[in-house]
């Protein structure tokens, strides 16, 4: 890390020291707080990581569908920076994991190519003192809510890490000839379909690769987001996000749900 990054760590350290005195902060709601206590975890602190990142320029060919590797790289790097800073804070608190992770991108007025990538979550520690660090020796991360975390643990699964895949893709414009040909007809536009498929596949595959690295047996709560950010109409970022899980216990303690009819509407 550069000098500036070390500077960041110093101010953060002071805040984290205060947390070690026994005070916890958390953006969990009361429901989530109680459910996390219920499965034997205690919140340690609200942890954050952020990075303000300038994305470079990449030329796109008007009539060619292609991945914009430079932009993909930027989206990856910036999110990695934010996530790893958040994980560092969690590790410094001696946490076993981070729950309720949110990844956001904010655009500021400083220039349209600069964006803030931010990761926030609540660091938690198991009360029984048994380490729950993941295969890479880091605290696990997960974007599951407190409620989902409780339910997941009842089924004998354990989150390993927040995994993501991203792909910034440029979808070719159609030529004038093509456009004229299809006017007035019912037909699929294969070049658009193809391009969207490819971009989605790339993002999903990258997410699965990350899960494999963690030795996960599955990914739950996968979300697929399509964003154009500020790149104009034919450039899209596909982002897939999910929590990689592994089975750690065979016992499923999830009770058969009681069916209710609620009288309020």
């Amino acid at each position: 890390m550069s000098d500036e990054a070390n500077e960041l760590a110093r101010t953060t350290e002071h805040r984290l020291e205060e947390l070690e005195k026994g005070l916890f902060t958390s953006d969990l709601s009361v429901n989530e707080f109680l459910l996390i206590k219920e499965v034997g975890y205690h919140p340690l602190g609200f942890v954050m990581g952020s990075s303000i990142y300038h994305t470079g320029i990449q030329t796109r060919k008007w009539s060619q569908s292609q991945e914009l590797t430079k932009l993909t790289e930027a989206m990856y790097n910036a999110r990695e920076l934010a996530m790893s800073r958040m994980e560092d804070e969690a590790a410094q608190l001696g946490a076993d994991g981070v729950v309720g992770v949110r990844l956001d991108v904010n655009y500021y007025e400083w220039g349209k190519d600069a964006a803030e990538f931010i990761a926030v979550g609540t660091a938690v520690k198991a009360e029984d003192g048994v380490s729950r660090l993941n295969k890479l020796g880091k605290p696990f991360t997960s974007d599951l809510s407190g409620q989902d975390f409780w339910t997941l643990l009842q089924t004998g699964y354990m989150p390993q890490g927040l995994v993501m895949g991203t792909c910034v893709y440029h979808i070719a414009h159609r030529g004038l000839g093509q456009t004229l040909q299809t006017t007035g007809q019912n037909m699929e536009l294969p070049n658009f379909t193809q391009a969207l498929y490819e971009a989605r596949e790339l993002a999903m595959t990258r997410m699965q690769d990350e899960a494999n690295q963690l030795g996960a047996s599955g990914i739950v709560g996968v979300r697929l987001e399509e964003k154009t950010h500020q790149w104009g109409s034919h450039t899209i970022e596909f982002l897939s996000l999910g929590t990689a899980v592994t089975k750690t216990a065979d016992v499923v303690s999830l009770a058969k749900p009681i069916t209710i009819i609620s009288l309020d509407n």
Partner: protein
Amino acid sequence: MSTETPIPDGSTLRADVRLAMASLENPSTSHTSVASVTSDLSIDEELNLHAVGWQPVELVSGVSAFSVPSGLWNWGQGEIVGAIRAHENAFSHAILQLQRDAAQAGGHGVVGVRVERAVHPTHVEVSLVGTAVRPIGASAVDSLKVFTSDLSGRDFALLDAAGWQPLGLAHGASFVYAPRRQMSTVLAQQSQNVELTNFTNAIYEARETAMERLQAIALSLAGTGIVQVQVVEGPMSFASHAIGFATWGTVVRLTREAHQRVEPQMVMSMNDRASAFEATTLG
């Protein structure tokens, strides 16, 4: 009822206003004579409160606005101290007012506080509205002992059942100048993927000081945790090179010797998603 009320002429109106003024100046007498309760809690929340032995007393509010010295936002270095101080003062004064209001109504605490805050170039305003509550039949306490919390009545009941108690609202805010990049740097970075460390630093600085203030208040209230921490961050809309970070939450402490498990049960609602009855669809 309305048929019995005589149409007010000038004299009765004046008498009404005088009565209203008197009750405003001396709220305690009006409370004993009229045992009415105003609260913005839902019926469910009231039931929840009663279930843990508390009752709502009165709708209370606290509002405060502090001015920010002019010409502060655009040029400078480091923290924007004037704005930070204004925010801190506005927030703590609003809380004090809320506590005073609640104590006067006989409350021991305020739940369901809605926090509304706005930062303008010239001033910071904070307004808090909530419902004062007390253990059923308890007598009034000193205003400094009144707790405030943005948790709903239902959250309050749930925390109480688990052995936790809210102690007060903690808050922290910080405003920082984001240093401008030099023209040569801007040009050099134009086509590159790079982190803008000056901005990242500024965001971190704002965040750390705001969170530290939040924690300092929690520690001063002898709390062991802050739940439902809310965060508002980003550049100020009226000053592109100023970054703001504000945060608040309810300070809690474990009051029983151990955390009580709530042991939730799994339920599955058999209701259909569509709403059952809508008056507007009736022919």
